[in-house]
């Protein structure tokens, strides 16, 4: 505390509610909207993954043109557990970005020809990777888990071929971030909501008949309230189902009972829902996002030995150095 600036440092807490490979629901508490939103933004736009970025087409006699197929290839999610440790091909000094380099790129080959009368689906399963750790996500899922229903998974269709048509190409996957192109975004959905605080005025509620209670409960488009079958009391069953639509408040006013329920958004707790494309696990996505956020803050924070920084930034400099 060099400058005597009051610190606003807080210690956010995370509580995981539900965790699956591609789905994560967690609570973020004791922080504010800016922190929650920064995390959300980084997850969408700045957590790196690997995606096909350069395609060299040798033969393409399919019905789709080269650009069309290249675009479709780019959008195939690839397992990107390596991505954090990889280099961006633009600042890789081991190569000139031609894809032969293991530090910044992974090469894929695709060679399919249809010799039958049936239509042949060219899928992500036909993409041959030179790196076993970077695979199309559906292929990786098929080989990893036994619980996965293989018959249901037909792969991501790239193009369909008829007899005599052929597709042969070389593709180079590179590391990138969602800011540059959405194909590099590991997030299918990242969203948060403010945790609602619902207070029912019990006294006023008891003055309602059971039918009135029921019609009041039904005015909410989502199932937030219910009637306890034993006590006939209105209880909050699922506060997070509330979408801040204020329908129940309007209903209460229409029934002549303003103030029947009070609903407020808690300013400091958020419920996150994260769905991953499969490129990295949803849990990894959050961890990587925090890592990226820390790196960004490090770039902002001034180092202690820059004296002139104090003149330049004054109190802000002190604050940024964690004072």
């Amino acid at each position, binding site marked *: 505390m060099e400058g005597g600036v009051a610190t606003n440092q807080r210690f956010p807490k995370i509580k995981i509610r539900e965790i699956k490979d591609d789905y994560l629901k967690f609570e973020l508490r004791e922080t504010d*909207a*800016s922190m*929650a*939103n920064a995390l*959300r*933004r980084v997850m*969408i*736009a700045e957590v790196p993954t690997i995606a096909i970025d350069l395609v060299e*087409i040798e033969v*393409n006699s399919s*019905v*789709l*043109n*080269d*650009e*069309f197929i290249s*675009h479709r290839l780019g*959008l195939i999610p690839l397992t990107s557990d390596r991505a954090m440790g990889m280099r961006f091909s633009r600042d890789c000094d081991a190569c000139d970005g031609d894809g032969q380099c293991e530090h910044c790129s992974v090469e894929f080959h695709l060679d399919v020809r249809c010799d039958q009368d049936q239509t042949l689906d060219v899928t992500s399963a036909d993409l041959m990777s030179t790196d076993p750790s970077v695979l199309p996500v559906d292929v990786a899922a098929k080989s990893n888990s036994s619980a996965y229903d293989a018959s249901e998974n037909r792969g991501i269709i790239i193009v*369909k071929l*008829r007899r005599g048509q052929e597709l042969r190409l070389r593709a180079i996957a590179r590391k990138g971030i*969602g*800011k540059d*192109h*959405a*194909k590099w*975004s590991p997030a299918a*959905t*990242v*969203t*948060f*909501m*403010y945790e609602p605080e619902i207070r029912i005025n019990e006294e006023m509620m008891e003055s309602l008949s059971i039918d009135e209670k029921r019609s009041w409960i039904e005015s909410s*488009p*989502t199932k937030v309230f219910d009637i306890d079958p034993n006590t006939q009391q209105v209880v909050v069953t699922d506060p997070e*189902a509330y*979408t*801040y*639509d204020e*329908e129940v408040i309007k209903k209460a006013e229409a029934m002549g009972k303003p103030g029947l329920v009070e609903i407020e*958004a808690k300013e400091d707790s958020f419920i996150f*829902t994260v*769905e991953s494309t499969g490129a990295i696990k949803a849990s990894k996505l959050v961890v990587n996002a925090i890592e990226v956020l820390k790196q960004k803050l490090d770039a902002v924070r001034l180092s202690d030995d820059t004296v002139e920084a104090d003149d330049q930034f004054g109190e802000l400099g002190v604050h940024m150095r964690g004072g």
Partner: protein
Amino acid sequence: MISLAPQLCRMDTLLYLLVYPQRPLLTTRTIELVGYDKLGAGQNATVAVMSYSGYDIEDAIVMNKASLDRGFGRCIVMKKSSAMCQNYGNGIMDRIIRPPRTGRQAERMQILDDDGLASPGETIRPNDIYINKQSPSVKLSGGSSAGLPDSAYKPSIQTFKGSKGETAVVDRVALTSDDELNIRFKFIMRQVRRPEVGDKFSSRHGQKGVCGTIISQEDFPFSERGICPDLIMNPHGFPSRMTIGKMIELLGGKAGVSCGRFHYGSAFGEPSGHADKVEDISETLVKNGFSYSGKDIIYSGITGCPLQAYIFMGPIYYQKLKHMVLDKMHARARGPRVQLTRQPTEGRSRDGGLRLGEMERDCLIAYGASMLLFERLMLSSDPFEVQVCRVCGLLGYYNHKLKTRVCSTCKNGDNISTMKLPYACKLLFQELQSMNVVPRLKLAEA
């Protein structure tokens, strides 16, 4: 699928194709009767009716960059260029020859195959040659073309026109002949375009608008469920246009996606059940946890705070129109002039100037910006130096050999002044003279 569509087998002059067409979520009975839902012309975009960033004024729309990355509004443009190998009779024909692989022209002929024609799949840049044709310089001399020496042919190559950096791909090449044994070559040049600022889009209610800006997904508003719009449309488009149908489409589409059924969007609920009333649609929405009004709570993507208003959000079928900036954008500093008036040419195709018209001129006069007016109307247009005789008031000339100025009417050079006029003005005087009208200039000291 697309392979059954005939457009990829034809050689159309101009063809616009949408890359990922969709079936509209909300149709009418008529659309089904004419099969319009079988030939998609647009995409179901999730639209948020709200204001964003100010780049959405005057019907402009704000687009989500991630949606564009994923293929929304992407289109294929195919343009035909053709060339003819003419038969002059007597066995004399234009000829197509193998391109030189070294030398001055080699770089521009990179995409040519050994047969002298551009090969399909090659990327073609502006000024690239797509046919290495030569025409005989003496057309009616006897003998067969085999007998003509190489020196009798002069090159008549054809190049790909387009502004700098605008590349295309040679999609197909076709050869046909007519009854005079001329061979016609047709080249289809293909471009795949993603939407950019200035491209025009429209919903099916005639609500057209250009893309005002493209914003990245993290800055876009999002809902609690994680829904992020593809498009933001300004609500000011509604009151004056009174497109109630668009609002019903949004509601019906939203109900459609949440219950998994295609709805009919006719204006009134019909007893036949071929339409869904707004009340029924609202009920479906409530059943799926949405507000009956189709409005959602939306959070700002920039701050993370909830927006002050409920936002009307849902899918609307949007079509990409063929008016794209890439085909229209134009600017020029210096450039070609018309021979007759020596004024800059007109129109984008001729790399023309942008006209400072009468009304703009009036503004400058009213403002009193005389130097600017002089610069625009004279210096940047068609300045011309003339010799004017102070006695007869007619135009003389400057004799470069004798280095003297002469008035051809007075037969001397005693009273000649040099001044500047627009070339078009000098042209007018001469045209008047040709009609026996004599315009005389009376000069005063400036």
